[in-house]
């Protein structure tokens, strides 16, 4: 999709698309499908488009920004989610409740990981792992293991 084509999509259209995408991702999640991660990536893409054409101070803009971060985390892309969050939180017009919502999304993610990896969480190393993954991803193919 080109930028021109993207701009041609209206807010209402995007709203519809994101609703459908969210429903699809949830269904795939429920079924435990490996396609769920990609579905959440699609949701993130629509939410980011919405965020791009809406004001951070508005309801739709605020929801889209929080939604973009949540969907990115749901897709398992933590480093990207952190980049998005940093960008949105830098917007001065973003209301306090939306900022809190973004923080809450990350907290929920940490809680989810802590539930899955309780022993690791007790060592206090979960945050280190996120940084390690980001660092390994930044090194790309030069790092062993290749898929870190």
């Amino acid at each position, binding site marked *: 999709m080109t930028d021109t084509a993207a701009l041609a999509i209206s807010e209402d259209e995007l709203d519809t698309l994101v609703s459908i995408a969210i429903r699809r991702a949830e269904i795939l999640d429920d079924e435990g499908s490996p396609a769920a991660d990609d579905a959440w990536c699609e949701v993130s893409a629509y939410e980011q488009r919405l965020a791009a054409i809406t004001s951070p101070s508005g309801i739709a803009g605020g929801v889209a920004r929080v939604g973009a971060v949540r969907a990115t985390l749901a897709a398992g892309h933590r480093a990207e989610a952190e980049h998005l969050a940093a960008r949105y939180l830098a917007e001065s017009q973003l209301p306090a409740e939306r900022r809190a919502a973004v923080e809450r999304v990350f907290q929920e993610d940490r809680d989810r990981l802590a539930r899955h990896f309780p022993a690791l969480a007790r060592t206090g190393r*979960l945050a280190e792992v996120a940084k*390690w993954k980001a660092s390994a991803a930044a090194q790309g193919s030069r*790092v062993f293991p*290749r898929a870190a």
Partner: protein
Amino acid sequence: MEGLRRGARLSRFSQGGVSMETVAFYSYKGGVGRTLLVANTAQFLALSGRRVVALDLDLEAPGLHHKLWNPTAVTTRGAVDELLAALEGEQRDRSLRDAAIEVQLPSGSGGSLFLIPAGSAPSPAYWAALERLNHALRAHRRNGGLPEAVLELQARIAEEFDPEFLLIDSRTGITELGGLATSLLADRVICLMTTSPESVEGIRVVADALRAAPRLASQEPLRIEFLLTRVENRLVRPHRVAEIFEEFEGSITILPHDPGLANGEQVWRRSRPHDPEDAGMSLFQATLGWIAKAFPGHEGQAAAAQRRMWAVCEAWLYLTRGGSRSSPLPNRSAWPLGRLREGVRFGWAENCRQADIVAYDLNTQPLMIIEFVDDDGDPDAAAGWWFSETQVPVVAVFDPYPPWRLYSREHAPGSGFRLSNRRDLPLPRDFEALPDPTDVSVGALLDAARRGYPEYLRRIVDEQPIVSEPVADEVVDGLACLDDIELARQALEYSAFGVVGQEVNGLFPQLFWRLPPEASIQVAQQLGHCGTAVAGTLALLAQETLGLRYQPDAIAEGGAEVRDPGTRSISFEISTASPEMAVASGGVLGEYRPGTNEVVLYSQAIKRCAGRLALRARHVGSVTLIHQTLRALARVGRDLDGRMWPESELTAKAALVLEALIHYFTHQHLVRLRDPKLLRAWETLTDNRTPVRRTWKPILDLSAEDARSLFMEIRRGEELAPRWRSLYDAMPEQS
């Protein structure tokens, strides 16, 4: 130094004050002995009093359970299941101990060793679990990935087992899990490689990547060590080893090659080295040396662990190679691997004890317990425990060096046990053939031979000195009692083994004259004459009794065979001709035929004579054999100065004197043999020969020195010295 070590330990995985060092063993290519090294390192550390967990993360080709545990036992969970449970968030209420197997250690080791296998591999259930794990890694990335899952597993191991060491058997090649085990989990990576270019290149590239890999903020930099394995012989390709040394700047340890391991992928104790230099042992020695250096500390206990592993290795090799550690291959007498087990615990709760090796019968009942007891232990107390708490018939206790101490219930006073005279470990056949496998007295072994296990004769013979050294009377007398011709023949053959020419051992010359003559003659015919134990025996008889040299074939100093044209070989034969024919031939029981140089025994005449005189035929035959052989030797032997029997025949009177002297020498030899049955047979025969008693008496009463002197003069046909004149004149003109 101690401060540095403590500082290093603080950098390791810390959980609630616990410090655990994680060591990953990695190889770029398979078949380098990685899994084996993990197993040996784990055992060594545990025996040294350390708490150890061994984790199999070679998920695609797991095998650590084969090295550390009984692979036939059932395991339902393992690393795959735990990783899967972590990713699916289902492990919360489950203890990791469900997936761990405690590897039994000897009593008093102080340490502990838990194995977390890959899973119930190989099985369809395991493959399904592995597939589910791969699926889970592809899906739901928000729930974390493999890095979190392996770190979770490591954290749970630290929490639940509190180990000092976590040893990881890592996947070969370039894989995600192999990378995580080495770069993320490990404090130290042991990189194994062979001398092949692909192996060396792979390790070099991976090591560079590992050095550059990111670490968790709380982790110290990764330490990497290198091992060059399967080095066949440093002398064969020294340049290649030197190149690798240079490439890794000398920081590399060499472990020698063991073909048995390379072919069989088996634990060193079960290996079958095929070369005479016994590479299995040098590999084991080098491995233990490396482990002790790579994991310093607990020096006293580590040395004890090293002694134990050595001793168990010795015992295992002895059992599996049929009684010889240096034997290149197991032989038929060895214990089948299926009837041996290592590290088996007996008893319950506090009252338990671990056998280092247990040998079982075909119904899987323990036949023999083998336990290592170090210098400070009490072997008698150890044996006492086994006999009081189990039904095992034999216990072997050993310290770092053979011989072993064997205990048995058999013939023990009361319900106790006794220390045996045996010092080697019984083999399966011993439990079958011997009522008490620890009783290897000559009597017990002879009984076994008579009951259909003739190979025990070899054991009796093999334990005797090779060259002319005294043999215990018990051994000679015991073997000489053998009546069975076949057994007697085998005893002679065994005692003749390895004998060359004059180098007879102390056993053969005695048995040759004392065993049934049929057996002795069969062996003489079978071995041939020149350069054999038979020739040596005749030479010994000629020298000791007649003072002559019998050397039909001699070995010159340079090693070449030299034939003495003057000395003819004596051959032996048993004739079944009737007594009448024997009498007609003039020999009666036997004769020496100068023309053919044969000693012939007349078996029918011997039997008839023995029956008439209430003697046993074998004894009459033996004395006849000795007597006739001495007659032959008197004829064909050389003087010490080389002189032979003169061509001219003796006068009848001289022949009679010579006959009396041979009679004298026969008696002398029988006295030397100290066989009362042969002496009795000889004296009975003598008593029934009138001329001997009546006219030969003056000669029979001579001293040994005089008899030999007279013999020499008669033999040379010389004018007799004046001192013999009266004696000579007193003899009748003819017999």
